[in-house]
């Protein structure tokens, strides 16, 4: 494939807050690019559901769970689109989508504006340096105000938003947009807005349009000398010059072009598609790096060239009736049928079998995926996040940021058939989703599943029931508590055993102290060979083992630095085992003196509610040990932000629904681990003791 063709490729993520209309927008894009021939609404009466929501569960709940990848063509450009879920519980999907995207569309509700999830998504986009276009949707809704949303983009997200359009009418009078680059009015006609009628700007909007264009040129000109000169000379400004300046500013993340319309009413979609082609970067414009395994993980620039050796990343797995489907992005070289590649994690050679390009749940077979493209493979055994390379090169794509699970649930299969299927299902889910973990508690015989929130786990339970026919008994959701220490404490411990058989002797001395930013740090300051060097790793291992299960409440311990500064050994009786045992004893000895505390995950909760329920919502958060950070009043609605312990948030969705007649919604995401108040610790201790008693 020539570089000319790669220049016409766009890999785009569509992300936003819940219910901003991402899936509806994607549906319209697919319709207008002729990938689908009928529009199915997200919660439409035809019962088909949106094309991108291919799992039954997604269609039923009207939410997008797994991001489906699809592609379409528009004006000679190939656009690969990943539709990403808006619920924070599925945030790893958003992260993975952004990792392989070169650009993104941030869909904002014209009424709700920049909501909490938009802020989370924006942080993720910044993390992966993904430039984005903002699309202000729902301009046809009552209360829509694009100017307010633009101000929020500036104030809440710190963007430099530049409106490329102004609306022609708002709310029920919304007819189209004025394109400030071409200075034309665009109207969208016929039932599905397929026909774009270009007309002169209505007189009533002319002054506003001129003012907005001037502001736009002013903001964009800093990215182009050519444009600045044209403005200063007051000469005719070519559209191409403006577009190139916008593209320049966007690729540096120096500005955010803002477009608008109503996906549901089929307005403003074609200009947005044009915007993808004009402004968003192609794979050639983006520098992607891999890590050289042979050279201490030094960064290696990847060449988006089909003749270079293959480097590709598996970013999503899906279980299909034909086996595992692996979504893959090729960064360098090309992935061709029947060729061999290597999975860098396992070192296994893989022969490439069937290659497909996906369109939600439908697919078409292809021979090759060239660099810069996204496709999917069948019959590859791998985990999400694996790197594939051509034989002979030794690089890996940088690992993706994976948040730690904060909630777990004990599950038990109802019968033997369910037991087999459950283990199959869990294996699959763990491979698909790195934020979903399972473990088996030998003491209780329970399987624990862990994830990012109640909804996250609920979805997997439901999938087990539907896709794997598993009947499950679930326990109460459990919070992932942790322990840490709050003060420095010394240890000096001798492990001595001289009764029968070979003796054991080891003395370790030093101190442990709180080190909040690390999980565990071990510092060896023993001098003069008081502990022979060969036993130091055994000491470290002994201490590290104790971190897994705290001596106090048996939760994992975090944030401790252990300094070993003295000790003693015996010429005959000292051994690695003896020093490991000594370290364990020393840990127990110092831990009790170091004032251990229990930590719990605290979530950042944002509730958006109509103003009349402000007091009720506040009260509900207050009752849950929430620390209310603040509230923001936006006319008819208020958003309330609070830090609330996860343990208090179980079932909150139901409570909020009944408090506000279903008119409020909330999002929550992990914020930090914080100390559990003493009175609550006592309760947890009691519960734990009674659970231990009943298991015994």
């Amino acid at each position, binding site marked *: 494939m020539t570089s000319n063709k790669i220049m016409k490729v766009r890999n785009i993520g569509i992300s936003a807050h819940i219910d901003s209309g991402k899936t509806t927008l994607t549906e319209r894009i697919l319709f207008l690019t002729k990938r689908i021939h009928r529009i199915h609404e997200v919660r439409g009466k035809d019962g088909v559901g949106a094309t991108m929501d291919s799992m039954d569960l997604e269609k039923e709940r009207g939410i997008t769970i797994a991001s489906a990848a699809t592609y379409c063509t528009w004006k000679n450009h190939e656009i690969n689109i990943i539709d990403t879920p808006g619920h924070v519980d599925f945030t790893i999907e958003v992260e993975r989508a952004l990792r392989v995207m070169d650009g993104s569309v941030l869909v904002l509700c014209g009424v709700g504006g920049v909501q909490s999830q938009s802020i989370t998504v924006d942080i993720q986009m910044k993390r992966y340096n993904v430039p984005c276009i903002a699309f202000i949707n729902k301009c046809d809704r009552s209360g829509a105000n694009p100017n307010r949303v633009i101000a929020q983009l500036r104030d*809440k997200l710190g963007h430099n938003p530049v409106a490329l359009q102004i609306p022609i009418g708002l709310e029920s009078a919304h007819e189209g947009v004025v394109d400030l680059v071409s200075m034309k009015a665009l109207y969208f006609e016929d039932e599905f807005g397929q026909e774009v009628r270009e007309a002169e700007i209505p007189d009533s909007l002319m002054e506003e349009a001129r003012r907005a264009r001037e502001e736009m040129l002013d903001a964009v000109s800093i990215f182009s000398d050519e444009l600045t000169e044209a403005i200063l000379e007051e000469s005719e400004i070519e559209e191409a010059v403006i577009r190139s300046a916008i593209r320049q500013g966007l690729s540096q993340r120096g500005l955010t072009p803002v477009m608008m319309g109503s996906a549901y009413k089929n307005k403003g979609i074609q200009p947005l598609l044009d915007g993808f082609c004009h402004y968003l970067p192609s794979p050639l414009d983006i520098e992607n790096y891999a890590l050289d395994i042979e050279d201490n993980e030094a960064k290696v620039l990847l060449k988006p060239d089909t003749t270079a050796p293959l480097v590709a990343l598996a970013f999503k797995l899906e279980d299909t009736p034909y086996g595992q489907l692996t979504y893959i992005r090729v960064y360098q070289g090309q992935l061709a049928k029947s060729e061999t590649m290597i999975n860098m994690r396992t070192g296994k050679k893989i022969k490439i079998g069937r290659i497909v390009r996906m369109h939600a749940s439908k697919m078409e077979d292809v021979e090759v995926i060239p660099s810069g493209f996204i496709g999917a493979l069948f019959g590859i055994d791998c985990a999400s996040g694996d790197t594939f390379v051509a034989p002979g090169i030794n690089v890996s794509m940088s690992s993706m940021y994976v948040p730690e699970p904060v909630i777990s649930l004990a599950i038990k299969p109802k019968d033997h058939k369910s037991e087999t299927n459950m283990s199959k299902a869990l294996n699959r889910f763990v491979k698909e989703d790195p934020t979903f973990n399972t473990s088996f508690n030998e003491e209780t015989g329970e399987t624990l599943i862990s994830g990012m929130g109640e909804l996250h786990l609920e979805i997997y339970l439901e999938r087990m029931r539907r896709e794997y026919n598993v009947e499950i008994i679930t326990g109460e959701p459990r919070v992932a508590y942790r322990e840490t220490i709050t003060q420095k404490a010394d240890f000096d411990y001798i492990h001595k055993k001289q009764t029968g058989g070979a003796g054991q002797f080891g003395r370790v001395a030093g101190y442990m102290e709180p080190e909040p930013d690390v999980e565990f740090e071990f510092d060896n300051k023993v001098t003069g060979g008081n502990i022979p060097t060969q036993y130091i790793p055994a000491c470290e291992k002994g201490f590290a083992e104790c971190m897994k299960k705290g001596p106090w409440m048996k939760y994992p311990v975090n944030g401790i630095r252990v300094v070993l500064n003295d000790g003693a050994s015996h010429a005959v009786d000292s051994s690695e085992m003896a020093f490991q045992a000594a370290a364990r004893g020393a840990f127990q000895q110092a831990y009790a003196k170091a004032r251990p505390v229990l930590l719990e995950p605290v979530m950042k909760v944002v509730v958006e509610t109509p103003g009349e329920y402000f*007091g009720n919502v*506040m009260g509900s958060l207050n009752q849950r040990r929430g620390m209310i950070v*603040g*509230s*923001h*009043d936006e006319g008819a609605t208020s958003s309330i932000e609070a830090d609330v312990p996860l343990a208090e948030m179980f079932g909150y969705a139901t409570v909020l629904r009944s408090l506000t007649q279903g008119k409020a919604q909330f999002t929550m995401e992990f914020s930090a681990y914080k100390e559990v108040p003493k009175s609550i610790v006592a309760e947890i201790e009691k519960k734990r003791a009674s659970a231990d008693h009943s298991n015994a």
Partner: protein
Amino acid sequence: MIKNIFNIPPVGQPGMDPTTDIVAPGGFAAILARAGVGKTALLVQIAINSMLWGKNVLHISTADPVDKVDLWYREMFQRLNQEHAALEINRNRDQLLRHRFIMTFETESFSIAKLKKRVDELISQNIFIPAVIIIDDFSFDAVSEEELADIKSFVEHNRLAFWFTIRTHRDEPTGQTKIPTRLTPMARWFDLILRLEPDNDRIYVRQVSIDENGGANTDILFLDPSTLLIRQMAE
């Protein structure tokens, strides 16, 4: 008074030392300055001082979102932690933050009536009972005498101390006390008026007193321009 600020009070314990009560309950105070001089920095330090004494502070902003207001506090905590290690601000941060509530309004949706309603809701449901309300960048231009009287009675009824910051402009006409003449009629409502004025390498905090002879300014503190932290005149 204000000079006692950051005199290491018992962190987060209610029972404020009356000598640190800068404005008595039911009183109004104002900080006047041009944009960018340090109004918010001084206001946030006054708020933190109250929080250190265990008093609840309601911080209201019509200009900035919650995160941005919170950032002011985080930055001030950081700086105070470096300068006043004995306060152990970082260690006590969570406890201190329980004494703060940020309430922001979109400029067009803000009104005195709405503010009173929201505060009433907080108090009546025992969610947050403020002792001090601070309102950053308040525009007095649109406020009538009746509304001021209304806030005053609300403040007195709930025994709140009410702080305003007011933005002044370089070229606007001022009187003898250097208060903009447009604000002179309001001055009688205030128990304390502070002006911030940069001069050489200090930002002076000047207390304005108005009397029958016109009034005067007294330097009581200054802000370090590099950290915007409060300094005593003797330093």
